[in-house]
């Protein structure tokens, strides 16, 4: 005989009650381990998604709307001996079956053979031939394409010139490409290739890089380079790029003009920005800027010369700064019959955002009339404007501004034929700069006397001075960032642990309840062992060892069920809960270490629970234990319980009261905490009441007092049942009441739609002001609509639809004045004026920090930040751009984006042309019909139009799905609660066999006894449910009072009724079953 033998004997003797404990342990283990496995699986799936979307890409070199030589990649490759691939990635939309099927937001990617090295080694792909395309599986599926089918692509025209730069035509912004599908790429063949951090698969079309260049009228250009380097090579790559990055890659040209007496620096982007001119001036102080601008009319004495160029530069002698003097050439002097000293009215267009044209004019004094020779006869002064420079005659000009053709005379055509865009007038540079500088730059050329520097030195110095980074090019370790985003994203392990929290607590309580019921059977044994001289530690060792022997199979079974639990969760995530993952790349990953960790945590929790309960029992005296009676001693804990109950109640009431009186809006977090504290307080109060009841002896005996006394026979048991039901009801009701009505209040300006009817995103930017009636007509919009046009930067989606931890969400430039009174701010810093919150974002904060606004859910969950924190970006010039979050919006259609003021946006992204995001109002007909009409109007822009309320509902659906999961798992936990109630009831009746037998012996009818027992448990059921319901009501008060949340009263009420009915059934069934037993048998058993 030894201790092991004793444990072995006990294990088999008490197998029935051990089995119930094993079940409790298995449930706990299943929940803990299962949720850890879910976490692993989702994390691994996101990592897999990262691998699939990037292939072997480790680093990415890219700029913002800039293109460089594709051969740059090869030069870097030669230097570093690593795999590289230049790509030209553009936006487009696709159609098939003669335009019957359309798909927006298509990534059009030009690749060459070097892309092969970014695929797995065993996959040979090669570059598509001209006119052929490789497409992704999802695109093939959406457009019902198979290999050999025809596909029509419309691709955003790639150009170095910003689309909305002055005098640039908006006529050729798209290129149509007809293709044949050569291959449908699986995910492993990089069909899901995506440089954005997202788990959702993009729609991809891969073309030959050369072919795409040809279609774009480009020559060997790329806008991204992929690097595959296993070494930590970032610095080497950066240096190699710098070394090989030419002036052409910088879109700069240096040419000799004026018989090689001058070098001229120009940009393919037409305008040179002030940063570049400043650098050039540092290199060669003698450099002079020139700004050549198109003038609508020169007027003298009522006569006009239309549509001519004027150059501002070092033409006046002396160069006397800002003045309004003009030199005209002899041709125009003759045309206008102008003389020196005449006043000349010069009229021109100022081109505002979205091509808003404002014709302005200014008076100048003619100070000189010059012959058309030397610097006054230099056609190179006119910048190379596509649509104009190459036009055969003036009437063919595509100037990006309205040209009144009837004003163009034959002599103007002759001038064009003879002198092209040779300026007819000259003013001082400072004056020209003041009048015509714009966000794209301050000059169209810089001229340097060739006597001051040789060309090679100039080019070298320019390359040194203007780094790729200063032009907005960046090198990113995309693989590392992607994996970090994947691992730092939504932690489904924690999430499901949270969602399953109540299930876990219920499992633990059930397990503790079952173990205690088992332990109660062993009280006599413990008492005897004590009397026989077993020390506390020996007894603890025996019971704990026994507990562990029971727990281990439970933990193993739980571990096996955890795998099943994970499978069920995954099945649900792939079907009914798809809204929260939005990816088909979900793989189950069962790591042995996670399985063991989950089981170890479960075992630890269970051991602590057993240890606590055994210790509690050991404090009883031997004789009490042997008689299974609780010692009647002063309850020292009662005082602490009172302190706990009243202090939590006080804190809860203080918090709720303060928030109700002083809070601007009812804070959901505070109310939920307050409700939770009240729940704790009420449970503790119940505990106090029931303990006190056990100590009272002078009360007159009634049926009610008898029930109360019976409940206090085993306060811990009654307490656990109440906790189970109170927590369960709290969770279920608060979840049910927090569920959002997906469309309620969506038309209100303060709602998450801002009161807008539609949210539209276009693949191609819309360059025009859509609130201009003529532009609406041009666009094919018959009934006038109100448009709010937003600009967008490249960035990741930080909405709840992206599971990755996004660092740089997409920025939207908004017109704050047009959003006044719309949407609702729920959190803010002092920088936000509560009266005019949107206007607050117009002004830069100290240190050039830009105020920004996001959805509060994105701030908190998507970015893991809080209001007041700062986001760091790089702007177009490569400079650091700090965005301070000054406001958090209630759930809105902007979810996933950072909102900043439009003007501040353009300051940092001056090349950004047009709008891609629109908020639309004013449709009078059926929304679905209006949406179809809008889709027709914007078919050439690849518009994705959503009814704003539907878009908001889509985001809310995610939240509702989480709540549904919570509700479901809470419901499961309630089942455990009911099992607990049933087991407790069964045990109660068993314990009270003698009492029942005697009651029947003294003449109580079965029904009366059934009534007494049923009422006792019904009381526990009702008290638990009532505590849970009242506190849940308090916790969800903000949601109940909110106009945007329709409390699902019916669901909540239905669930509570089901809980009660289920409880009643158990009570009735078990009580009846026991009372069927024979009276004599019952007494004999005792």
């Amino acid at each position, binding site marked *: *005989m*030894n*201790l092991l*033998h*004793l444990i072995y*004997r*006990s294990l*088999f*003797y*008490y197998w029935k009650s051990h089995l119930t404990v094993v079940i409790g342990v298995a449930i706990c283990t299943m929940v803990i381990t299962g949720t850890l496995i879910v976490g692993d699986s989702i994390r691994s799936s996101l990592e897999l998604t990262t691998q699939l979307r990037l292939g072997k890409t480790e680093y990415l070199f890219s700029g913002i709307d800039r293109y460089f030589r594709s051969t740059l990649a090869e030069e870097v490759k030669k230097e570093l001996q690593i795999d590289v691939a230049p790509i030209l990635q553009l936006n487009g939309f696709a159609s098939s079956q003669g335009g019957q099927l359309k798909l927006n937001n298509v990534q059009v990617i030009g690749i060459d053979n070097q892309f092969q090295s970014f695929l797995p080694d065993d996959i040979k792909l090669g570059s598509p031939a001209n006119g052929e395309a490789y497409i992704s599986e999802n695109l093939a599926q959406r457009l019902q394409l198979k290999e050999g089918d025809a596909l029509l692509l419309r691709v955003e025209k790639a150009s170095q010139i910003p689309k909305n730069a002055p005098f640039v035509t908006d006529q050729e912004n798209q290129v149509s490409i007809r293709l044949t599908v050569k291959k449908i790429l699986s995910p492993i063949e990089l069909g899901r290739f995506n440089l954005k951090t997202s788990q959702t698969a993009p729609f991809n079309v891969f073309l030959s890089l050369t072919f795409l260049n040809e279609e774009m009228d480009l020559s060997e250009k790329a806008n991204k380079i992929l690097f595959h380097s296993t070494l930590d090579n970032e610095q080497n790559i950066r240096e190699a790029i710098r070394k090989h990055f030419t002036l052409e890659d910088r879109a700069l040209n240096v040419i000799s003009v004026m018989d090689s007496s001058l070098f001229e620096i120009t940009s393919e982007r037409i305008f040179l920005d002030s940063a570049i001119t400043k650098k050039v001036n540092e290199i060669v102080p003698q450099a002079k800027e020139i700004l050549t601008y198109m003038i609508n009319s020169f007027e003298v004495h009522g006569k006009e010369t239309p549509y001519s160029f004027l150059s501002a530069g070092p033409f006046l002698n002396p160069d006397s700064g800002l003045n309004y003097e003009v030199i005209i050439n002899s041709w125009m002097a003759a045309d206008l019959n102008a003389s020196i000293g005449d006043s000349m009215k010069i009229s021109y267009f100022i081109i505002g955002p979205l091509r808003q044209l404002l014709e302005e004019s200014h008076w100048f004094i003619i100070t000189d009339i010059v012959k058309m020779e030397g610097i006054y006869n230099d056609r190179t002064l006119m910048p190379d404007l596509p649509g104009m420079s190459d036009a055969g005659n003036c009437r063919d000009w595509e100037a990006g501004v309205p040209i009144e053709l009837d004003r163009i005379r034959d002599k103007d055509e002759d001038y064009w034929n003879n002198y092209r865009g040779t300026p007819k007038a000259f003013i001082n540079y400072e004056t020209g700069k003041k009048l015509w500088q714009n966000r794209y730059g301050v000059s169209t050329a810089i001229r340097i006397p060739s006597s001051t520097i040789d060309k090679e030195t100039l080019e070298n110095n320019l390359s040194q001075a203007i780094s790729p980074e200063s032009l907005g090019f960046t090198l990113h370790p995309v693989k590392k960032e992607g994996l970090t985003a994947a691992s730092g994203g939504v932690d489904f392990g924690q999430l499901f642990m949270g969602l399953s929290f109540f299930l876990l607590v219920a499992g633990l309580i059930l397990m503790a309840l079952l173990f205690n019921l088992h332990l109660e059977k062993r009280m*006599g*044994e413990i*008492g*005897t*062992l*004590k*009397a*026989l*001289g*077993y*020390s*506390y*530690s*020996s007894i603890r060792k025996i019971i704990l060892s026994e507990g562990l022997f029971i727990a281990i199979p439970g933990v193993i079974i739980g571990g096996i069920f955890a795998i099943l639990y994970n499978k069920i969760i995954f099945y649900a995530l792939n079907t009914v809960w798809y809204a929260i993952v939005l990816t088909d790349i979900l793989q189950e990953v069962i790591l042995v270490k996670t399985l063991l960790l989950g089981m170890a945590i479960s075992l630890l929790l269970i051991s602590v629970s057993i240890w606590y309960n055994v210790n509690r029992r050991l404090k009883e*005296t*031997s*004789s009490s234990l*042997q008689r299974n009676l609780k010692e*009647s*001693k*002063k309850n020292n804990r009662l005082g602490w319980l009172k302190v706990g109950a009243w202090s939590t109640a006080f804190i809860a009431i203080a918090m709720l009261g303060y928030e109700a009186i002083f809070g601007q809006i009812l804070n959901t977090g505070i109310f939920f905490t307050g409700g939770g504290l009240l729940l704790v307080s009420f449970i503790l109060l119940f505990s106090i009441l029931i303990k006190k009841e056990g100590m009272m002896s002078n009360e007159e005996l009634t049926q009610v007092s008898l029930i109360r006394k019976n409940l206090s026979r085993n306060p811990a048991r009654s307490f656990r049942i109440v906790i189970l039901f109170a927590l369960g009801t709290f969770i279920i009701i608060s979840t049910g009441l927090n569920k959002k009505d997906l469309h309620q209040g969506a038309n209100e300006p303060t709602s998450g739609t801002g009161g807008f009817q539609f949210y539209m995103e276009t693949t191609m930017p819309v360059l025009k002001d859509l609130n201009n009636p003529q532009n609406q007509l041009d666009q094919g919009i018959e009934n006038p609509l109100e448009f709010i046009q937003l600009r967008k930067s490249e960035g990741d989606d930080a909405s709840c639809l992206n599971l990755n931890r996004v660092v740089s969400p997409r920025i939207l430039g908004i017109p704050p004045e047009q959003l006044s009174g719309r949407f609702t701010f729920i959190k803010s810093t002092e920088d936000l004026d509560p009266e005019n919150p949107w206007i607050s974002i117009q002004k830069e904060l100290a240190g050039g920090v830009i105020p920004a606004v996001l959805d509060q859910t994105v701030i908190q969950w998507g970015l893991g930040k809080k209001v007041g924190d700062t986001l760091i970006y790089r702007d177009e010039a490569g400079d650091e751009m700090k965005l301070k979050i000054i406001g958090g919006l209630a759930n809105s259609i902007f979810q996933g984006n950072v909102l900043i003021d439009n003007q501040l946006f353009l300051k940092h992204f001056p090349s950004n042309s047009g709008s891609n995001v629109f908020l639309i109002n004013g449709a009078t007909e059926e929304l679905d019909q209006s949406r179809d009409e809008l889709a027709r109007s914007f078919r050439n822009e690849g518009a994705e139009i959503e009814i704003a309320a539907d878009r908001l509902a889509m985001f809310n659906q995610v939240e509702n799905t989480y709540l549904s999961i919570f509700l479901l798992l809470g419901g499961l936990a309630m089942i455990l609660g009911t099992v607990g109630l049933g087991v407790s009831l069964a045990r109660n009746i068993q314990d009270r066999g003698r009492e029942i037998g005697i009651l029947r012996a003294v003449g109580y009818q079965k029904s009366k006894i059934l009534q007494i027992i049923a009422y006792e448990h019904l009381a526990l059921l009702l008290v638990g449910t009532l505590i849970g319901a009242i506190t849940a009501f308090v916790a969800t008060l903000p949601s109940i009072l909110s106009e945007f949340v329709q409390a699902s009263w019916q669901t909540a009420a239905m669930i509570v009724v089901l809980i009660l009915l289920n409880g009643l059934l158990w009570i009735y069934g078990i009580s009846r079953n026991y009372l069927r037993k024979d009276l004599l048998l019952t007494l004999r058993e005792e």
Partner: protein
Amino acid sequence: MLLKVQHITKTYLSENSTPVLLNLDMELDSGQTMAILGPSGSGKSTLLNIIGTLDKPDSGALFFNDKNILDLSDKDLASFRNREIGFVFQSHHLLPQCTVMENVMIPTLAVKDEAFKKQCKTRAMELIHEVGLWDHKDKFPGTLSGGECQRVAVVRALINKPRILLADEPTGSLDRENAHAITALLLKLNGEFNTSLIVVTHSEEIGKQMANAFKLLDGQLKPWK
């Protein structure tokens, strides 16, 4: 003197403030037998539990071989109880999952002296034989009668050769015949092993069979008859 109880007082907090034991003194020498009688609630079991170190008095001292054992730690008290005290309760409190032999051996598991433990097996067999349960040694308590179970409990109490055997209403749940047999067994074993015996009982018959008999009244022991 083997056992000396000196000025023991014990009051239960939940009852009215009247002590159940008040300045109680008693002595017991090796091999002596003693009966403690008294009405229900007079404190007999409380006294027995204090002597058996299962409970502690509010004041007073408990000397065993002239050493105040109330000064011992819980762990040492458990060890003391294991080696020096044997308990027999009104109910046998045998472990239902263990056989007769195993139940008898249960107290030896708490003994650390391995040499002593080895002897216990032989002693257990002898004692089981002596109480007439040899044929039942591999049976479980559920298959035995109440008297048989109580005999097993007596053997279990004596397995570690205790110096004092404390019996709390040992015949309280037995019929007359079995009660006689258990009393006889206790006295026989007392004579055989020189184990002092204190019996708490309502039975005057048992009281008469003990060398010393006291009645516990008003917290004090008073000579009975």
